[in-house]
């Protein structure tokens, strides 16, 4: 090769090197260890292979992460087969808030040897998980995550935010309210009048009687309207099986006169055609389609986040709805259901894992503050930043985070949509500023949360006490009580059972007793008493 050719070649390779460096496309041999992790599929992640958070985790952990998607149908059976398959190369399984296994099932997997206990790694040195345990004061988080055999089988996904979280909010169509010259309801009787007007007044002005005063779906606690309305009579939380705490005592609200009055009220709505039986059977997707229908057909509905139901891109539909604070019932009841931080399994290490130490370190990394900020808000400087002086949070007070791009419930490639071990820290999540967009779902939810807080009960029975109770037969009794409650609720609302009949009501209450209600309450009372003692020392 001539000197001239050498010179051209040198210039060419120099430019090529510059171009490659500029593109960050160095594709040299990768000596990093590969870990294979099964994850639920998420329609909100563009491409997990190029996802920002996934790449950040690889960079920080020094691992190559190969993701395998979990089948969305027959999940438990699929996972059981996955764990037990001879020659399975899975190192870990990550879960999402929508798709995870219960503590109970995970303990079974642990006992059967499909997943590894994590105690040795937690106790071996300083870990972020230990920091999370030490920094959490609502209850003994470590004990709550520990199985009956004394072993920790999973890394948590934990949301400690409370100010910005809603369990169930009533969203009402202001377009209809204005069209009919109504006011937002404050009481259960106001609510009835509004529904009647919705049903008869043709508020969508299409000349047809196609209005649906209430849309609901019993497929989720948040979208099941009856629970919201019962809370205008007595505090009622279906997640805690109807148990609540008053002056330190665990009480069962479905057996009260207020709950009975709520059944009579719900039945009267049903009898007047204002609460459709159809509501009980709608799937979440049917329910969403109904609310998002461009013909503007729905008067009100309940949900946690408004964008759990209305598509974020439907700004026209979003602009129609406003939150309505909890309704007051005839006896002065008016309750909001508070949220409680509940650890759900975020990730487990399989028995077939080749390097459990490395996988544990990866999952522990995911509990760090930096990881959690990326996991919730994406890339710092691009999608979010720390707030400036004077920025106001959506829940009021000083904002801590300035979120520029809302990534929740939307297609994105910055985080894993809540998949995997994660700690959403209240000091950030509750103090996010407003993006300035009127249709910003976090803003709409935050404003609703502020108006619901005054109506939360004074004492809160943490759901975790029921979720992690391991005493003999407790969970079976719980399931039986909840199933009986659901069945009877439907019967009372539809009039199949008459709540005004003393005999029928007594029979209903006796039904609970026969399922072992008193023993059930006693167990939860003991757990609650222990919790109060624990809190005094932590």
């Amino acid at each position, binding site marked *: 090769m001539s*000197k*001239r050719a050498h*010179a*051209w070649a*040198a*210039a060419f390779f*120099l*430019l090529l090197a510059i171009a490659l460096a500029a593109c960050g496309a160095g594709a040299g041999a990768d000596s990093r260890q590969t870990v294979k992790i099964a994850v639920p599929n998420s329609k909100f992640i563009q491409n997990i292979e190029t996802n920002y958070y996934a790449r950040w985790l690889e960079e920080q952990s020094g691992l190559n992460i190969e993701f395998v998607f979990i089948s969305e149908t027959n999940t438990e059976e699929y996972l059981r087969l996955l764990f037990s398959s001879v020659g399975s190369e899975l190192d870990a399984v990550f879960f999402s808030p929508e798709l995870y296994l219960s503590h109970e099932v995970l303990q079974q997997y642990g006992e059967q040897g499909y997943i590894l206990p994590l105690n040795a790694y937690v106790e071996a040195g300083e870990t972020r998980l230990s920091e999370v345990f030490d920094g959490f004061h609502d209850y003994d988080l470590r004990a709550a995550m520990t199985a009956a055999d004394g072993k920790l089988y999973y890394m948590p996904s934990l949301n400690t935010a409370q100010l910005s979280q809603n369990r169930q909010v009533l969203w009402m169509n*202001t377009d209809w*309210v*204005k069209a009919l*010259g*109504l*006011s*937002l309801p*404050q009481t259960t009787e106001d609510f009835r009048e509004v529904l009647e007007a919705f049903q008869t007044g043709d508020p969508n002005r299409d000349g047809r009687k196609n209005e649906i005063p209430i849309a609901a779906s019993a497929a989720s606690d948040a979208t099941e309207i009856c629970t919201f309305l019962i809370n205008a009579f007595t505090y009622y939380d279906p997640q805690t099986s109807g148990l609540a705490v008053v002056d330190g005592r665990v009480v069962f609200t479905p057996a009260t006169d207020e709950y009975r009055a709520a059944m009579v009220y719900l039945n009267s709505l049903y009898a007047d055609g204002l609460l459709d039986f159809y509501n009980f059977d709608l799937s979440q997707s049917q329910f969403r389609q109904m609310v998002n229908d461009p013909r503007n057909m729905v008067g009100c509905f309940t949900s946690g986040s408004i964008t759990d139901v209305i598509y974020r891109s439907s*700004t*026209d539909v979003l*602009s129609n709805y*406003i939150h309505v*604070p909890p309704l*007051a019932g005839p006896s002065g009841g008016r309750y909001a259901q508070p949220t409680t931080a509940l650890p759900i399994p975020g990730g487990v290490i399989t028995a077939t894992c080749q390097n459990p130490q490395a996988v544990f370190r990866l999952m522990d990394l995911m509990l760090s503050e930096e990881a959690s900020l990326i996991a919730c808000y994406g890339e710092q400087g691009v999608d979010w930043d720390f707030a400036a*002086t*004077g*920025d*106001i949070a*959506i829940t*009021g*007070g*000083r904002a801590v985070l300035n979120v520029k791009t809302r990534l929740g419930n939307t297609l994105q490639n910055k985080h894993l949509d809540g998949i995997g071990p994660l700690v959403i820290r209240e000091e950030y999540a509750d103090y996010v*500023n*407003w*993006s*300035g*967009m*009127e*249709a910003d779902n976090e*803003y709409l939810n935050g*404003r609703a949360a*502020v*108006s619901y807080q005054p109506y939360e009960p004074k004492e809160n029975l943490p759901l975790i006490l029921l979720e992690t109770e391991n005493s003999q037969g407790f969970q079976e009794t719980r399931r039986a009580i909840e199933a009986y409650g659901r069945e009877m609720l439907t019967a009372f609302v539809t009039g199949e059972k008459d709540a005004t009949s003393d005999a029928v009501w007594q029979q209903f209450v006796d039904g609970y007793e026969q399922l072992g209600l008193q023993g059930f309450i006693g167990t939860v009372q003991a757990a609650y008493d222990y919790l109060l003692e624990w809190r005094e020392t932590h």
Partner: protein
Amino acid sequence: MRTKLSAIVLACALLLLAACAPQAAGAGETQNAQWLAEARLDAHETPEELYQLALAEDTIMIYSNTSRMLEVKKSFEAQYPGLVVEVMDTRTYEIVRLLKEHRTAGTSLCDLVVLEDQNALLSRELVPEGIVYKYVPWDIAEHITPEHNTEVLTFLGESELLFYNDQVYDEPPVLNWWQLTEPEFYGKVYFANPLKSTPIYALFLSFIEHSDKMADAYEQLYGVPLEIPEGSSAGHEFIRMLTQNGAVLTNSSDEVSQAVGGPGQTDPPVGIMISSKIRHRDIGYNLAPTYQLEPFSGIYAPNCVMVAEGASNISGAKLFVRWLLGETDGTGAGMEPYLDSGTWPVRSDVQGKEEIPLAQTGVLMLNKDFIYENGTSFAAFWNTLMEESGY
């Protein structure tokens, strides 16, 4: 040889740099002039002519600071089948930021902007820099009152006022701004962050501009002159005392409206917000404005509509402006969402639904020069207050 090689590498590097560099300013100006000529903002076009032209265009993109623009969009799309409008509903500050970002990037993603000029950035920066342009339909111009057709086109008259809950209070609980600094109102005054909301920003700057009036109002209320620290003013002292009296800052007037007028309250706060929120009465909120307040009730805070530089759907944008202004005779449905008891029409031939005439509201007209010149020092003052207040 070494020289030749260096030259080759240098040339290649320069080519790469040139490819990545933004367009030269001169090219941008030429493009702008060409767009402006083609936009024909002074043409005498009928709605039908514009409609036919707009049918060949794309979705009309509007950046708007008012959520009622979605209602205008609905009636517009019903009136003109085949035309589609997209509204991005955000704050004036964000709109200004986006427009400047588009200018820097040399892109034109927006056709129309609806924003306030209470921070004077619209009239003192966006208009002179050619980032937005005024379009006044030729056959509607004569109906727009002169004060609403200046360097910017105003389509909606609103005011920033003090509100109270008229279900709890039979009459205004405050008659002098200084009362809000008293212990009775500790933690009971709501308003939006002035660095995020332009009407309250302008109101606070007006307190400073009219410090003499604020000092007089103090003496009128308490019978003694206000002690003003050296280098400060009565306006600054009022803002300081108001904020340090546990003022609750919000992101927007909607939150103020909810806190003040939300249903079922027994001890509601008072709040400073934009007058058009009176419309929340329509859904049962209990809100009343305070028009008689010493030394002035608030400020006039109108809203403007302008065409964005480089708007690619110019015929649709023009048609939308016509619709928003109520069309030639002022009866078009586009204006309806903006005719309520808390707004004042900008057209002399349109009867508004305002509670009282603007002249009787006791609001001040804005001095945009003062606001523009003093904005930076106010922001510094405010940020110091925020730090002292723990925000």
